[in-house]
């Protein structure tokens, strides 16, 4: 917790040199992860399995120096993107489901690189899938809504409910309900590089340790590092870095984005919360759609 809360005194990109450097570090690893997602997505072909896709992400990132993970890369294909009939967390792990033409897919990875963590989600489809395109387009409203309400310092639980209401109005189901604790976001932090960094159920132990200690401290102060629909999220946004992942599901097709939202305790609304990076594949896509 050295960096992100330090943002309190900082201005975006300037001031507090430590913070600016930190944000740059997080931004770099987030970009690296999105580059990985785009590279792997470009290689997906009919017949590729989820396991293979997850392995491709892992290899790509390892080749670029990633040694530790917040969580290992996931891949979901077809109706698994909408978490159809997901009951237990084990179902999140990649399976031998094969990609078919027109299928939607989601790549989700959280590499740790030089002590900085990213957690990203990348939605795509193999060929034409109008439902998926619509879902992805409709996610734009959620990115705006979340930022606006975080800047208004609304309790996280209320923001969560507003996101869900918007999803229902759009005609979709809220699929991050299926995540552990139904979370829409969780905190991310720096992770000290270790020579040996084992994973537990797909999660890096170092990151889990960070999350656990946040939970412990947060519990004392009345906040939680998990942004959920439950009472423990009934508090205003806590300064820090949040990996936010709204996930829409519609009749067997799902789409999400996941990226880092920086929350500071600045009084200036603009500075109090901002997306770490606006130059991401989904944001570019919306801008192109808007321009067209």
């Amino acid at each position, binding site marked *: 917790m050295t960096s992100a809360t330090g943002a309190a005194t900082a201005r975006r990109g300037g001031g507090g040199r430590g913070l600016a450097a930190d944000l740059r570090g997080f931004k770099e690893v987030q970009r690296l992860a999105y580059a990985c997602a785009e590279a792997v997505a470009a290689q997906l072909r009919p017949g590729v399995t989820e396991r293979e896709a997850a392995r491709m992400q892992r290899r790509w990132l390892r080749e670029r120096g990633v040694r530790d993970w917040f969580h290992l890369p996931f891949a979901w294909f077809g109706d698994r993107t909408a978490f159809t009939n997901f009951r237990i967390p084990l179902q999140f792990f990649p399976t031998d489901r094969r990609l078919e033409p027109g299928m939607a897919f989601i790549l989700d990875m959280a590499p740790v690189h030089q002590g900085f963590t990213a957690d990203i989600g990348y939605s795509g489809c193999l060929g034409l899938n*109008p*439902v998926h395109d*619509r879902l992805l387009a409709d996610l734009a409203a959620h990115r705006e809504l979340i930022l606006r309400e975080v800047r208004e310092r609304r309790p996280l639980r209320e923001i969560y409910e507003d996101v869900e209401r918007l999803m*229902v*109005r*759009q*005609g979709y*189901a809220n699929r991050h309900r299926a995540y552990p604790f139904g979370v829409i976001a969780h905190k991310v932090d720096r992770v000290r590089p270790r020579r040996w960094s084992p994973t537990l159920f797909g999660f890096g132990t170092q990151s889990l340790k960070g999350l656990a200690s946040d939970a412990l401290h947060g519990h004392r102060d009345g906040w939680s590092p998990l942004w959920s629909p439950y009472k423990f999220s009934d508090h205003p946004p806590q300064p820090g870095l949040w990996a936010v992942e709204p996930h829409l599901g*519609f*009749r067997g097709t799902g789409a999400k984005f996941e990226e880092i939202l920086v929350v500071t305790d600045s009084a200036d609304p603009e500075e109090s919360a901002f997306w770490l990076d606006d130059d991401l594949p989904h944001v570019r896509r919306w801008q192109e759609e808007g321009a067209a």
Partner: protein
Amino acid sequence: MSGQEQGQTGLEGARERWVRTGGVELCVAELGDAAHPTVVLVHGYPDSKEVWSEVARGLADRFHVVLYDVRGCGRSSAPKPLRGGFTLEKLTDDFLAVADAVSPDRPVHVVGHDWGSVQAWEFATVRRTEGRIASFTSMSGPSLDHFGHWIKKRASRPTPRRAAQLLSQGVKSWYVYMLHTPVLPELAWKGPLGKRWPKILQRVEKVPPGAYPTPSLPTDAAHGAWLYRDNVRARLRRPRADAYAHCPVQLITPTGDAFLSQRLYDDLDHWAPHLVRRTLPAKHWVPRTRPQQLVAWIVEFVTAKEEGDPAKEVVASGPYADRFGGQLVLITGAAGGIGRATAFAFAEAGARVIAVDRDAEGAARTADLARLVGAPQAWAETVDVSDEAAMEKLAAKVAAEYGTVDVLVNNAGIAVSGPFLSTTTEDWRQVLDVNLWGVIHGCRLFGKQMAERGQGGHIVNTASAAAFQPSRILSAYGASKAAVLMLSECLRAELAGQGIGVTAVCPGIVNTNITSTARFTGVSADEEKRRQAKVSRMYGLRNYPPEKVASAILRAVARNEAVVPVTPEARGAHLMSRIAPRALRALARVEPPM
């Protein structure tokens, strides 16, 4: 003479010609532009080509429609001698002669009903017609070869299920044995049976009265008996092993067919690759009782084959697509919750959807997404169901622009909760206006259109578990829903004779928006807000998805179920209302925590 006869036949505007082949003269009638793709309609037993009159009229503006009287029927001449004159080989000769006469350069699309379909299976599976048939739509007539293999498979290894299937079809085929007796069938048809047949058809099959059957019926039926005698025994004993269809096949199965079991077609995919299946809740004579549905499916299938786009699936991917494909479905309260989920489920089954709601934006969104998931067409209409004039306008507009509704889902509803003594007259009026009057308007206006069309349909009314589960805080809501339940059951009895089914769906606690707009009587505005939020949260925790109610609705329509409780608590309450109503009454006294 001929004009008078055409008047009798019900084929106005048809161009007639005679085709001479194999010692008989066939009467061939043509409708529509000869430049369009040709659709040949082949009639069954004991019919003549006039059985197709409604279907032919429906197809004529898009296709070159050709009908002919099978040899020995209608105005075609009969072979001499009759014995041996009706073999499938000779009937194939006839078909090829007609096809060559009406469409010499292009393959034709064949549609067969009953014996027409039996014949057409022969056309579609023998070598010499290859390249002459572009597609085949079959209804109520299996291939005798496939039938033979079907019997053999079940007789040689009779598991209990297979034995039951064999027995059931054996019973349904009683008339086939009768027709094999000499002379008697002829005497019966020329005597009392022929005279009473039209009345029998009207009573048993609900065939609408009109120019069918034609006066030639007794001779048609007497001659046609040779169809059975010349073919059935020979083919069933030694079915051809290579009876594979060489053209795309669409199979339309009426679920209430008294003569043919649905199980007959279980193995058909083996004989006809790329088979398109359709089911129709009707009896045997579908060309008379369901002409519009047949026209819609034939048009869709033939057009797809003409356009020849292999990527285009004729049948949507969702459950019950065989049943609802291309049908027109109107859903009220479609801007959210159960209505919206139902619209999507019907869309996935390939139905055309009209999403009605007073929330224009929500209805538009539903229609928009419905198109994305498979509805060939979807429209949004903004109407308050409690507004009689608006509903009348909607009914007129729908009839004029989209046609008669096949499935109507009266789903719109609002919730009112609170003690009776604090429920104001205004509260009562509101809840009854929407929940009861909305349903009444819908049933009255669209039910009338369905009944007038006379081709069946289905009405679904969304009641609630509150209809049979009393509660101290739901007197107004429960009363409105109980009324909807009883209204549905009465209407079901009334419309049963016209092939229109009515279903009352009674969901329990389903995660929808109804709670966040529920009216709580006798409390302040703030308290009402708090209760809305609390109940919404409780419903959210229960988290029973509206999609499951939608699936239950589709299943109920497909099976024509009367009362369908959805969710375990609704099923439990429904059961208790019958076996332990006192327990339910005791439960009703408990004040729920608010």
